[in-house]
């Protein structure tokens, strides 16, 4: 394959050279255990502390409010279980949304089995929660509101500041899964009244297998992984020092360059969306028209199925993803696409293209050249499309 156009930055990203550069000496030189008191244990500790400061700065938090984890899923699990178990005496009710990542949803389902009650807020056709719904869902027993910052499939960005204000007024912990938001939107956990925030390095050009959880000072939360005294006794396990260093550098770059990155992606995405909508009939754009991640474009092409589309794109060197049931290995298409009101048959035909750092105008041109042909070819093969052609 000659061409390779990566358009799946919401799935994962390539580690930036500057990030890898900071990580490498950690493997070969500063390999000490940060808990050790000898010199190069202390060096390793210093590197971890520096990374912690970088994360804190990027979020408007204090360094002592940052805890490193193995990724977004661990961070989400920690919050949901940790807050639920530690605040049982105050209540057993959690509010979240129907479009969260599975790391939140499946953990909530687990908690329901254990006797907690969970409200899954619905969303509108754009994937937005309604503030009235949130207010109406709060009860005396509500201990946690967990609402994602930006959705990984359709890119819709929630009104985080408003949610934070309500949570604060009602004295309820507010967690946001910001795994998709870092580097794309400006975050200030204090101004936005966020009590906990999950992030994962590989979504912003850092390494896989490392993430962080911001926990506002004073928050009551039980540990998820118990053992050694690392992370000030809150998360056991020898620190993934190279990963943490990579995360620190990556979040620094991501937040420093946020404006130019946004501008670049928005330009490319506008071209992509306009081109697709113009060239391919029977197509819908999923997600909010403006309040969405700058790199996210999510379409449904009627009468065809997503996996076939992905395979054809892959043969043309284009890496993309779909909310079709076939790609997830489940029987139902994406819960997010169903939650925004799409019928199953339409949801099966979805395509997510997420732009990133290395994409160019040429990439978009290429997609616009290749995609319409592929869609047409699949439609010509589709028994559902016959009826359309036949004018029915």
């Amino acid at each position, binding site marked *: 394959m000659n061409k390779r156009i990566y358009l799946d930055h919401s799935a994962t990203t390539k580690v930036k050279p500057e990030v890898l550069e900071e990580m490498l000496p950690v493997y070969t030189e500063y390999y000490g255990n940060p808990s050790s008191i000898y010199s190069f244990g202390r060096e390793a500790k210093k590197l971890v502390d520096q990374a912690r400061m970088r994360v804190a700065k990027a979020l408007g938090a204090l360094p002592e409010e940052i805890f490193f984890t193995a990724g977004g899923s661990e961070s989400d699990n920690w919050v949901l279980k940790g807050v639920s178990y530690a605040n049982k005496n105050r209540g057993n009710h959690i509010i979240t949304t129907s479009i969260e990542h599975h790391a939140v949803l499946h953990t909530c389902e687990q908690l329901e089995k254990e006797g907690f009650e969970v409200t899954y807020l619905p969303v509108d056709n754009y994937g937005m929660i309604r503030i009235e719904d949130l207010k109406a869902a709060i009860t005396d027993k509500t201990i946690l509101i967990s609402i994602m910052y930006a959705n990984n499939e359709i890119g819709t960005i929630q009104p985080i500041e408003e949610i934070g204000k309500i949570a604060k007024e009602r004295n309820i912990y507010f967690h946001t899964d910001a795994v998709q938001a870092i580097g794309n939107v400006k975050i200030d956990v204090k101004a936005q009244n966020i009590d906990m925030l999950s992030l994962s390095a590989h979504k912003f050009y850092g390494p896989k297998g490392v993430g962080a959880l911001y926990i506002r000072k004073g928050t009551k939360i039980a540990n998820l992984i118990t053992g050694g005294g690392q992370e000030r006794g809150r998360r056991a396990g020898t620190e993934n020092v190279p990963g943490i260093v990579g995360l620190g550098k990556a979040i620094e770059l991501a937040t420093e360059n946020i404006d130019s990155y946004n501008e670049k992606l928005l330009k490319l995405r506008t071209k992509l969306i306009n081109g697709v909508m113009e060239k391919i009939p029977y197509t819908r754009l999923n997600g909010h028209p403006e309040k969405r991640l700058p790199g996210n474009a999510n379409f449904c092409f009627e*009468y*065809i199925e*997503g996996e*076939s589309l992905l395979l054809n794109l892959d043969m043309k060197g284009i890496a993309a993803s779909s909310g*079709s049931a*076939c790609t997830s290995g489940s029987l139902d*298409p994406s819960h997010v696409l169903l939650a925004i009101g799409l019928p*199953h048959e339409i949801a099966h035909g979805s395509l997510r293209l997420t732009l990133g750092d290395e994409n160019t105008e040429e990439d978009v041109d290429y997609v616009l050249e290749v995609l319409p042909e592929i869609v047409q070819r699949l439609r010509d093969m589709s028994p559902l499309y*016959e009826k359309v052609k036949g004018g029915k």
Partner: protein
Amino acid sequence: MYSEKVMDHFTSPRNVGEIENADGIGEVGNAKCGDIMKIYLKIENDIIKDVKFKTFGCGAAVATSSIATEMIKGKTIEEALKLTNKAVVEALDGLPPQKIHCSVLAEEAVKAAIEDYKKKHNKQ
């Protein structure tokens, strides 16, 4: 994920299309589940002279439809009725576990088309 054989049938599916005035048409699956297969048969003296298909579905759905049409073309309807999903899977050098149902659909689509033929021609 997919065998070369599957990818071959997916990228160059055999017998795609429709047959006008087909002697038998079978459609199985439903859009809600993300798979529909439709098979058209041209039959003379109980022999399948021509077969075409249209499929809405994943790579495996397309490939199983394609190979199934190849496997029954030129066969008697008796022989075609013996087509099993297992034979389809084997002919494709295997399918991932979560895609086995596509081969079942292919078998069912062939049977439904022959059924339709029989019904229309009072062969039952």
